[in-house]
């Protein structure tokens, strides 16, 4: 109980600070807002605000643990769903470590069977190994490896949005979500009226779903005047879009491939490795895919499949296709971490450090009794690992552990 009050108090302090700067979302009067209220422990939706001042007052009055707004623009954002009058929606992408296989294997996550209480670490199983139960309580952790994987996916996504979809970098807004991933929002006017099917095609493009791999490269129907019948395995990849990504990816693969790599891709012949130069120039450049002995079109298909996996961006598909989605608001706290959803320029993706830049609570300390926490880094300091101990920590670290359910407040 004390812990919940502690969080309420900290969040309340944060939102009532008059020098706080919560940036208003674009066209905020046309958006629906939703909140998870800390005291009432309930979701409130269908709110609307004319300006950022009204919203600020609401935040400090009600103290939500989480603040969301719609990606959609409505005529009447506070009406019930069927009567809102949908005008359009931003194109949004959610990249969450939960959806990406990561090298940490989520070893920092814990699960407890809701039925028999059996507990373990890592990826939550489908059924409890002891009692076969299917409901689990999980405790996740925003680890550096997880967030780095999410960042890599975001880099690929942003690259496609810029080069393939042609959005200007100022139209692509990138955010740290405040927990285990990144949000990318495109607010260009042209995308607002895309319907769910069109957004699904964008999702498929980004994730490489349905990509014809060296079978029927669709667009190259013979052009009038150039009616030359080409063999089915002779065609070159263009320097655009997925063609370019495949080509560059395959080039990289061939230059660096070891026998192990070939086996991973499912190839048993090593002919590819004996004459990398010829393979690169004849096959990849000239597009004569079966011109090197021992390297068949099927070989290329396997490599292409592998490259597609590497080059595609792993996004949460349902978020992008949902025309009414609520998404966390920029500049507000995440109830599971006490970190901020934080915008930063796309160019800074590789250097952005969420464990420094998204920290909201900068002063004070708190004494917490920690059950179990892995090593973590916050504002440049390294903490833990902790196991059943009472520690006095900087406020942000204490809030993080309490929000994550890894610690209780020791004394007030």
């Amino acid at each position: 109980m004390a812990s919940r009050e502690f969080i309420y108090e900290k969040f309340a302090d944060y939102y009532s600070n008059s020098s706080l700067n919560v940036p208003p979302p674009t066209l905020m009067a046309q958006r629906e807002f939703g909140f998870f209220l800390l005291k009432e422990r309930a979701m409130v939706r269908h709110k609307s605000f004319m300006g950022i001042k009204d919203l600020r007052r609401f935040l400090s009055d009600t103290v939500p643990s989480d603040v969301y707004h719609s990606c959609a623009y409505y005529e009447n954002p506070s009406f019930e769903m069927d009567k809102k009058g949908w005008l359009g929606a931003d194109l949004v992408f959610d990249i969450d470590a939960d959806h990406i296989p990561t090298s940490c294997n989520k070893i920092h996550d814990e699960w407890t069977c809701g039925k028999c209480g059996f507990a373990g670490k890592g990826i939550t199983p489908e059924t409890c190994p002891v009692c076969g139960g299917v409901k689990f309580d999980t405790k996740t952790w925003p680890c550096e490896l997880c967030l780095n994987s999410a960042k890599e996916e975001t880099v690929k996504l942003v690259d496609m949005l810029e080069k393939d979809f042609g959005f200007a970098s100022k139209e692509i807004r990138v955010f740290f979500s405040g927990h285990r991933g990144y949000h990318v929002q495109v607010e260009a006017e042209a995308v607002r009226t895309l319907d769910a099917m069109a957004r699904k095609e964008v999702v498929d493009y980004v994730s490489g779903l349905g990509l014809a791999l060296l079978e029927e490269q669709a667009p190259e129907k013979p052009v009038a005047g150039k009616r030359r019948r080409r063999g089915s395995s002779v065609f070159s990849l263009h320097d655009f879009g997925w063609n370019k990504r495949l080509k560059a990816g395959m080039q990289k693969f061939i230059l660096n491939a070891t026998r192990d790599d070939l086996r991973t891709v499912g190839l048993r012949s090593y002919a590819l490795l004996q004459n990398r130069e010829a393979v690169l120039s004849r096959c990849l450049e000239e597009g004569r895919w079966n011109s090197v002995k021992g390297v068949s079109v099927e070989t290329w298909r396997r490599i292409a499949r592998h490259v597609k996996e590497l080059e595609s961006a792993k996004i949460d598909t349902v978020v992008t296709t949902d025309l009414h989605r609520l998404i966390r608001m920029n500049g507000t706290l995440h109830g599971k971490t006490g970190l901020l959803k934080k915008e930063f320029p796309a160019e800074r993706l590789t250097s952005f450090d969420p464990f420094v830049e998204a920290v909201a609570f900068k002063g004070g300390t708190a004494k917490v009794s920690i059950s179990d926490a892995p090593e973590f880094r916050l504002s440049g300091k390294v903490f833990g690992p902790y196991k059943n101990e009472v520690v006095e920590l900087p406020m942000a670290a204490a809030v993080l552990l309490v929000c994550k359910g890894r610690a209780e407040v020791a004394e007030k």
Partner: protein
Amino acid sequence: MQMETVIFTENDLAKYPFLKDTAEYMKKLGLKIEELENPEMAPILDRAQERVKEAILSLGVGKKRENHVEIPSFPVAIMLAIATKNSFIKKRYALAEAKQAFSDMQFENNERIMAIAADFDWNIALNRDLTVPLEFALSFIDYLRNTTHLRDKNWKLVNRLLANGKVYLNKHDVARLLQEEVQHRIEKKLEAKELPNFPEKITVMAEHLLELAREKIGKQEMEGFPKVVSQSAFPPCIVALYEAASKGRHLSHVGRFTLTAFLVNIGMPPEKVTELFKSFSDYNERLTRYQIEHIAGERGSRTQYTSPQCSTLQTHAVCTGSDALCRRVHHPLTYYRIKLRQRTNESPKK
């Protein structure tokens, strides 16, 4: 834009009467709806009737006549199709006109194609990049608006050359996408909410066309689903979802929606569907019933939801991989329908 304005001639309007300039032409002509009964209008009326009739019979629009008959026959044909108040006729007529436009457009030069595209406010340019052997570059927004319901995987954006927001296309493909746009525009025209008082002749013609359509539809009668739900005809994705649900295993939101909508669509009563979700650990009877009744169209917006098609299930990783029949269909419900039919045909007759 770089458009050197192409001015549409009367010949153009005869070929593409759906262009905005036709309205201007008709205004000058000053034709009134009551005048359609006049004997000198007979050729126009006759041609209009032929347009719709050919559409119903063969998805064509018949042979072109002189411009002064051909152009006005189009708006009259629209009126005729509206007068039938029949959605099959309207759909078919729009499609027939669009197909005709497609076959004509393939013989046009690039500038004319650009001018027609401009009539639909497309963001399109002639491709100046010589490394790409495709003549046009179309904004991906316009591209998607006209391709998302085309099934061939060649139309998927992921299989196109997309650079800088532009999809590179040849003339054939641009014409094909303009066909979609034409069909859409004509369907919009046919949506007319308030109907005028049609002259006697029009009403009579509409009756004839309706009769013709009834004969045609009779042949491709729509089949409903039988009352009994047949689990053995479920497609693999639904089998997987169904099993997961009955074992109380976790289902994604899309998975739950797909299963519920599918079961409701094939005629399972909502109470029985609710029953299925009972084994869920986070089961909440009131909420579940509410959601199911919502999907069944008994609540909220009153629209009955249809379960998602195959491509959507692939996007959200609900598709479990396909069997031989899957590869022939695009929708789980079609799979079910075909499988049912196969099984009734196979079962020994007594």
